[in-house]
C-alpha cells in the first residue's frame, strides 16, 4: 500500500494525539517530596530563574531570591505589597498593590513601567518579550500591552469573558490565562481579548489566587479551598492536591518538580512527578 504524504500526516497526527492522551493519563503521579520552611517570609508569587527561586514576600514588602533549601541569597526591598511578579530577560517586573505601579528591577535600579491607564491594586503581571499582561484587581480587567498597542480584556461580571477580582495572569502561545479569583475559575482569552475557554468552573474552586501554565498543564491554586488543581489544556481535571498545603497562593514548575507557596504556612511544598512504568 502506497502511503501518500497526506495519509502519512494523518497517521502522524493520530499517533501524536494518542501519545499526548497516554501521557496525560494515570501513569503520571505527583508525589509530595518535601517542605521548604521560609521562616518569616509570607509568599504570594513564585518564579524560577537561573537556578534560583524568587518569592514576593508581601508581609515584609520585598522580593527574595532563595536557594532550594529556603536560604535567602538576595533581597530586593522597599516594595509596597508585591504580588504575582514576572522575570523576563533578566528584568524583574513587580506589581505593587499599594502604589498601583509595576516596578522594573534591573541592573541594581528600580523604575516604573509606563502604564496606559490608572490601575487599582495590580495583583499580577506576566511579561513575555514585548507582551505584558497586568491583572488589575479592583478594576476587574486585564491590561495587555504589546509593543505600544493596548488591549483591555474583560470587565466586571460573572458571565463568559467577564472577570471578578482577577489575581494572576499568564501569557502562553498567544493566549492570556487569567486566575479569575472570585468567579472561582480560570478564563482564557486570545490577544484580541476574545473569550476562548473556561477551566475549573465546575470544580468548586474557592478563590483562584494563582495560575501556572505549561505545555501540558494548567495549574490553579485554590486559596480558600486549600487545594491545587491540575488540568490539561482541554480543561479536564487530572489531579487535585489537598495534603501538605497551607493556603496556597502560587505555583512554579521546574522540570519534574512543582513548587507551591503556602501563605499561612510560610513555606513551599515541593511535589515530584513520578513516571509509573508498571502501568505503561
Amino acid at each position, binding site marked *: 500500500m502506497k502511503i501518500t504524504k497526506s495519509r502519512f500526516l494523518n497517521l502522524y497526527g493520530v499517533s501524536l494525539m494518542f501519545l499526548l492522551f497516554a501521557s496525560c493519563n494515570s501513569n503520571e503521579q505527583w508525589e509530595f517530596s518535601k517542605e521548604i520552611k521560609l521562616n518569616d517570609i*509570607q509568599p504570594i508569587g513564585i518564579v524560577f530563574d537561573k537556578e534560583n527561586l524568587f518569592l514576593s514576600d*508581601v508581609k515584609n514588602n520585598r522580593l527574595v531570591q532563595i536557594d532550594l533549601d529556603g536560604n535567602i541569597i538576595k533581597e530586593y526591598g522597599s516594595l509596597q*505589597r508585591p504580588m504575582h511578579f514576572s522575570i523576563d530577560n533578566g528584568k524583574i517586573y513587580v506589581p505593587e498593590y*499599594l502604589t498601583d505601579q509595576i516596578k522594573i528591577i534591573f541592573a541594581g535600579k528600580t523604575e516604573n513601567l509606563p502604564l496606559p491607564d490608572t490601575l487599582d*491594586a495590580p495583583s499580577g503581571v506576566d511579561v513575555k518579550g514585548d507582551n505584558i499582561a497586568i491583572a488589575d484587581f479592583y478594576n476587574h480587567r486585564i491590561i495587555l500591552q504589546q509593543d505600544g498597542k493596548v488591549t483591555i480584556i474583560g470587565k466586571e461580571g460573572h458571565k463568559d469573558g467577564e472577570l471578578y477580582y482577577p489575581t494572576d495572569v499568564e501569557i502562553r502561545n498567544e493566549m492570556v490565562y487569567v486566575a479569575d479569583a472570585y468567579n472561582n475559575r480560570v478564563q482564557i482569552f486570545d490577544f484580541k481579548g476574545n473569550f476562548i475557554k473556561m477551566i475549573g468552573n465546575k470544580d468548586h474552586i*474557592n478563590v483562584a489566587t494563582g495560575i501556572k501554565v505549561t505545555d501540558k498543564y494548567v495549574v490553579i491554586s485554590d*486559596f480558600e479551598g486549600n487545594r491545587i488543581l491540575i488540568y490539561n489544556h482541554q480543561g479536564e481535571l487530572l489531579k487535585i492536591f489537598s495534603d501538605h498545603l497551607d493556603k496556597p497562593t502560587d505555583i512554579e514548575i521546574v522540570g519534574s518538580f512543582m513548587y507551591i507557596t503556602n501563605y499561612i504556612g510560610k513555606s513551599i511544598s515541593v511535589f515530584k512527578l513520578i513516571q509509573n512504568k508498571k502501568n505503561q
Partner: protein
Amino acid sequence: MKRSSRIPFTKKIKTMSKSIIILLAIFTIGITSTSAQETKKFTGTVKMEVNGLSCPFCAYGLEKNLKEIPAIEKITINLEEAFVTLVIKKGESVLEEDLKKKVKDAGFTPGEITYAEIPKKKKENENNKK
C-alpha cells in the same frame, strides 16, 4: 365609651399633651443616640471585625483603602481571625462612619469596632478611681 365621656375636656387636653411630650422626648433621645453612634470617634488602638476577608488580596485591598484615612498610623490585618487592628496617630481621632465606609468601599462588611487597648485618658481615670 361611657368612661371617656366622663373625663373633662381640659383634662383630656392635658393628658394628650403629656403623651405628646413623652413621645417627643423618646423620639429626640432616639435621634440623639443614633447621631451619637454615627459620630462616634476613636482614638488610640482600635480593633475592627471585618466580614468577607478570604484571601491576601482582600486583606491588602482593605489596607489600601484604610490607608486613605490620614489619622491612621498603623494597620495590621489578621486574615485568619477576620479583624483589623488600627493604631490612630497621637492627638488625632477617626470617625466610626469613616472606618465603616472604607471597609464597604473595599468590598467587605464592617463588624463591631472596639478598643484594642483602653485609651490613655480612660485608663488614667480608672487608675485615679483605684
